[in-house]
Every structure is written in structure tokens, then in C-alpha cells.
């Protein structure tokens, strides 16, 4: 079968529609992941071993199992206990929790990198634990981790096609339905690949920039 430019023009609007959902899911997923990761990282430092162990094990479990199965779990099992989520919401939660466990490791490394003296100084100046976190530790810990976090968010962007398995109408799903209704697979599938490749390559350039901007805090 030959490459058909007319067909490409015909399906392009649908694909762009799907691309919008893909980008929306990525952005929302990244926000959820950033928050979930931070919470996990802080809770994991809890002095109570029961809490920190449980959270640690849960994070390892989520990281060791496939995102696709977790999406199925959220989409098919939760309705049985009365939580019925729209596909996109289920997908964003799945992406957010899965990549949140990865982000938690990044946060952990970043927080560990803040010198102990900063904690002690914060406590010595009579800041509460909450204030010490918000005003002293996190402002120093977060900038160096931005490149590593961005790296995971790019990885997450590449995983969004999985959302098509739970009927989210993102790029991959639009391409599949275009392919199925016309029995032409070459153009839609290749275009999806090209879209992802182009956006990934652009984000790699952006990542390099972020690395230069933030990774060398100590040297300033």
C-alpha cells in the first residue's frame, strides 16, 4: 500500500483533536504526579516506621506493576465500590499516581541533599516544622530536581497512548479509529509516531535548557 497524502489531510483534524487531549492529560497528570510525589516523599520520612514502611512498600508496588493494569484497575474495579470516574479523570489519576511514585524518589534525593545544618538552623530560629519545610527546605530542594522531574514528565507524555485502552479519545485512539474505519494503518500509525517523536525531541532540547538553568545551584 502506498502513502496517501490526501488521506493524511483528511485525518489530520481528528488527530490534532486527539493531540489536544493527549497534551491535556499530560499536563494534568504531571500536576497530580508532582503533588502525589511530594506527599509520598514527605510521608515516607515519617518517624513512625509503620507509616513510612507502608508508604514505601506501596510506592514500590506501584512502580513494579504495569501502568496499563493500574489503569484497568482504576477504570473497572473502582466502579464496583461506587466510584465511577470519567475515562479522562481515571487516566489522569492513573498517570499521576504511577509517575508520582517516580517523582517521590526525585524529591527524596533532593530533600536529602539539603544540608542538615539548614534544618538545625530553621529549628534554632524557632520555626515550626511546617514553616521549616515551606520556607527553608523545599525552596532549596526543589530547583535542583526540576530537570529530573521534567525527564519523568516526558516519559509520562510518551505513556499517554495507554489511555486509549480505557477509551480516552486521545491521539492514539483517534488514530486507531481513523485506521479502523478506512482500513488504512500506514498513515495514522506513522503520524502518531511522528507526532510523539517531534514533541519528544523538542522537549529534550527544553530539558537541556532546564538542566543548565537549574542543575548547578551550588556553583552560583
Amino acid at each position, binding site marked *: 500500500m502506498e502513502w496517501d497524502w490526501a488521506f493524511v489531510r483528511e485525518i489530520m483534524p481528528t488527530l490534532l483533536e486527539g493531540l489536544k487531549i493527549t497534551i491535556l492529560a499530560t499536563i494534568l497528570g504531571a500536576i497530580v504526579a508532582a503533588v502525589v510525589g511530594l506527599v509520598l516523599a514527605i510521608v515516607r520520612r515519617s518517624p513512625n516506621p509503620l507509616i513510612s514502611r507502608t508508604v514505601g512498600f506501596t510506592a514500590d508496588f506501584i512502580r513494579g506493576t*504495569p501502568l496499563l493494569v493500574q489503569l484497568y484497575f482504576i477504570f*473497572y*474495579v473502582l466502579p464496583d465500590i461506587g466510584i465511577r470516574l470519567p475515562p479522562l479523570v481515571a487516566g489522569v489519576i492513573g498517570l499521576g499516581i504511577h509517575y508520582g511514585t517516580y517523582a517521590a524518589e526525585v524529591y527524596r534525593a533532593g530533600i536529602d541533599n539539603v544540608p542538615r545544618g539548614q534544618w538545625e538552623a530553621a529549628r534554632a530560629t524557632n520555626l515550626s516544622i511546617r514553616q521549616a519545610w515551606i520556607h527553608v527546605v523545599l525552596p532549596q530542594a526543589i530547583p535542583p530536581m526540576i530537570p529530573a522531574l521534567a525527564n519523568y514528565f516526558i516519559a509520562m507524555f510518551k505513556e499517554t497512548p495507554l489511555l486509549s485502552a480505557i477509551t480516552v479519545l486521545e491521539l492514539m485512539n483517534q488514530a486507531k479509529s481513523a485506521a479502523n474505519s478506512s482500513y488504512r494503518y500506514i498513515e495514522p*500509525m506513522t503520524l502518531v509516531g511522528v507526532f510523539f*517523536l517531534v514533541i519528544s525531541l523538542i522537549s529534550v532540547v527544553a530539558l537541556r535548557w532546564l538542566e543548565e538553568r537549574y542543575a548547578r545551584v551550588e556553583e552560583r
Partner: protein
Amino acid sequence: MIDWSGYIGLILQGALVTIELTIMGSALALVMAFAAGLGRLSRFLAVRTLATVYIEFFRGTSIFVQLFWVYFVLPFAGVTLTPLQAGVLALGLNVGAYGAEVVRGAVRAIGREQHEACVALNLGRYHRMRHVILPQALPLMLPTFGNNAIELLKGTAVVSLISLTDMTFQAQVVRAQTGSTLIPFATILILYFAMACAISAGVRWLERRASRGLDGVRV
């Protein structure tokens, strides 16, 4: 009451397919990782370019897109693959691209003096790699290879979408037949996690073996 033994059997059959895919995919990924990783360090520009294009291409798109491309588009080019072959090919090439960066990083982490000592001892390129550089680089690669193998294991779930009867596919079958959702999905989540634990235990064992005799060379 549902007869669960039959359904659990179905899921275990799927687990075998998942294990088979993981092993074959890892084997292909390992070969690709060394080929492309060492290719990027080649002295020939053409080899370096080829390796870079391979790595960037497979890291730039997701396993899902690659799998669909291999399964649905390659037949038009006259290459028809079974779902299993397509799965192994896509998983191996995808994870191999990530592994290639690990190989490259580990080889470059070996100090210059090791290269210089090899030149001084008149070792050829092959012997230098085989007997001096790689034995030291291997322990550096293994932890990340372990993570990559777990990523590959997680990637195998995607092949259920091209109707390969792996664990995830069988869980969907069980869901469709029994209407129960919690039991099949919870079972396969636990099985996937057990496999991931087995991989990381295996890699830790390999790491101890590979670093045997390297005491004092490096920490």
C-alpha cells in the same frame, strides 16, 4: 458461585506468556544495548550516526506506538509478524535503546588511564574492550539493566492490546466472563510485582558475581 480454579489457571497460562516475552525481549534488548551503546563510541562516523538515530528514535516514541507500528504497518511492507514476534521485537528494540545509553555511560565512566595502560600493553581494540574495559564497566551497568528489565516486564502488558494472550489479556477475559473485576486485576498486579521482585533479586545476585575479583580496583 464461580469456579475460580479454571480462571486462575487461565491467568497462570498468561503469566507464562508474560515471562516468555520478558525473557526473549530482554535477550534482544541486551544485544541491541551493547551493539548500539558500543556503536555510539565507535571511531566511524557512520556507525555513530546509525546508533544515535536508533537510540533517539526508540526513546522518543513510546513502546505502545512502536508496537502498533510493527504490528499494523510492517505487514504492508511485506513483513507479517505474529503478535509474539511483534511484541518481542518492539519491546527488545525499545528497551535496548535505553540500555544502549547505560552501556555508553558505563564504558565512558572507566578512567582514561585504563585505556592508556591497554595501549601501553599493546592490546588491540577488541582485547581492550573484552578483557579490560567491559569487565569493569559491567558492574556499573547491572543495577540500571535491572531497572530496564522491570520496565520491559511492565511493557509486556501493552502486548495484550495486539491480542497476545499474556497475563493482562487473560485478566480481561476473566473479567468479561465472570463480571468480577477485583479478583483478576488484583491477582495479576500481585503476580507482576512478584516477577519484578524476582528480577531485582536476580540482578543483585548477578551484581555480586560480576564484581567478584574487582575488589580494590574500584569502590
